[in-house]
């Protein structure tokens, strides 16, 4: 498998105060094409910062290469679903929010656009909400539209920042399945931040545990056979490993 993402010596400091600390320090990471990389880690450890750097939103020291090319600005090859509820454009309806990125990227056929929007709205269970404006949606619904919008673009790399955090168990389950299906079909690479160890085990082909200053504490393949359930072989063991590491993390602070 080819390396789609290579990070070496990544250091990030927001420099917002004279004595501001490095958020990420000399981080090295390689991700292969088709990987589903889940990132766990305590709140504030730099997960979001890391994927923002990969997405091209932040200046950084060190080197991030996507497909061999240094990341300097955002690109349509890396689509990000943000953590924030307000990432939809409030001046566009839900449907337009999904179609607009497609239009910009060359899909102009009306029927095609409608089909894609319909399919993806159905996927996230919001078929009836196409004409709503974002401010008329609940938190979870906004988040689902953002996911639909990201997936509709069929990007090579999908960066997701706790996308399912505000969804109920059912919707979450369904979307997890869909995400996995789409990734497999398109052979996309997914980098996925979550606080849910179970979710990481269910989805990830590889799981990363980040600790303070972006130190990679655990970086391992997830060998539990898909589809993963709590009853799968090796699940309990893996779960405990990450859970313990996270607690340990906590005690260190």
């Amino acid at each position: 498998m080819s390396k789609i993402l290579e990070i070496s010596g990544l250091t990030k400091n927001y420099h917002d105060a004279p004595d501001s600390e490095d958020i990420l320090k000399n981080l090295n990471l390689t991700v292969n094409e088709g990987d589903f990389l889940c990132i766990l880690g305590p709140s504030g450890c730099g997960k979001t910062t890391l994927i923002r750097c990969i997405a091209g939103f932040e200046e950084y020291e060190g080197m991030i290469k996507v497909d061999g090319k240094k990341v300097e600005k955002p690109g349509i090859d890396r689509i990000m679903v943000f953590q924030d509820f307000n990432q939809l454009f409030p001046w566009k309806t839900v449907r337009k929010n999904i179609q607009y990125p497609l239009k910009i990227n060359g899909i102009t056929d009306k029927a095609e656009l409608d089909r894609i929007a319909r399919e993806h709205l159905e996927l996230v269970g919001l078929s009836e909400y196409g004409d709503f404006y974002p401010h008329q949606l609940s938190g979870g619904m906004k988040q689902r539209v953002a996911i639909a919008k990201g997936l509709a673009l069929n990007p090579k790399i999908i960066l997701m920042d706790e996308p399912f955090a505000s969804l109920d168990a059912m919707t979450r389950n369904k979307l997890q399945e869909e995400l996995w299906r789409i990734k497999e079909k398109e052979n996309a690479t997914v980098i996925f931040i979550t606080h849910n160890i179970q979710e990481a085990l269910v989805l990830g082909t590889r799981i990363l545990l980040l600790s303070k200053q972006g130190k990679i504490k655990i970086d391992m393949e997830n060998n539990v056979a898909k589809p993963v359930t709590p009853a799968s072989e090796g699940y309990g063991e893996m779960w405990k490993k990450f859970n313990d590491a996270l607690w340990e993390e906590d005690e260190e602070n």
Partner: protein
Amino acid sequence: MKEARTQIIFVVCFLVVWQIVYQMQAFNELVFPSLKDIGQSFIDGFREDSLMTYTMYSMSLILKGLAIGIILAFIFSSIAVVSKTFQAIYHLIVSVCDLLPGVALLPLAIVWFGIGEITTIFIVVHSIIWPMSRSIMDGYNSVSKIYIEGGRNIGLRGFNLVKGVYLPAAFTHVLSGMRVGWARAWRALISIEMIFGTTGAGAGIGWFIFMKRTNVDIAGVFAALIVIMIIGIIIEYGLFHTIERNTVKKWGMAR
């Protein structure tokens, strides 16, 4: 509806107070005319003094000036978002030019553009382009980071980013700027007509005011002011409110 009722009641009260002050003879009649005189001047203005023609001429100048001013303000502010160098320069230009009153530039305008309509339009443009540019640039600068990132994320760059994200996201600022610009345009136009005069091309409502004043016909001046006010109300409640309702209010970006 409730809003409109409040406003009508207010206007009526205002008129009543006016008439009472008039009756009290607190001011010389020459400077504080009765409602009847003003009404009469208003009607006469349209019937005899071709106030309509003056108004239409002013409106046509305003529209030209506004169109040019708004378009230029948008173009420059948008370039300023795209290019840091241009932003530094344009910001300086705006800070400086916004302070120069139209009257002070009149000599230059006369020299550059002669004494025709163009000079008037130049002054109108001068009086709206800078405040509008400020509003637009301030708006652009306060667009929430997440929308910009959302736009860049889906591949928007340069002017497409401005059009697709900055502009709608800063629309409350932009609308605010348009309102200020519209008001400025009127004020500038009328002042210029009153200070500078008229040219062969035609005369506007400011000239009408000037003549009425020269003839110490204050009721006539008020009649002209009322025309301006009525136009203002039509534009504010007919145009701007409608735009607002169909944009920022619909989008949940303003109440």
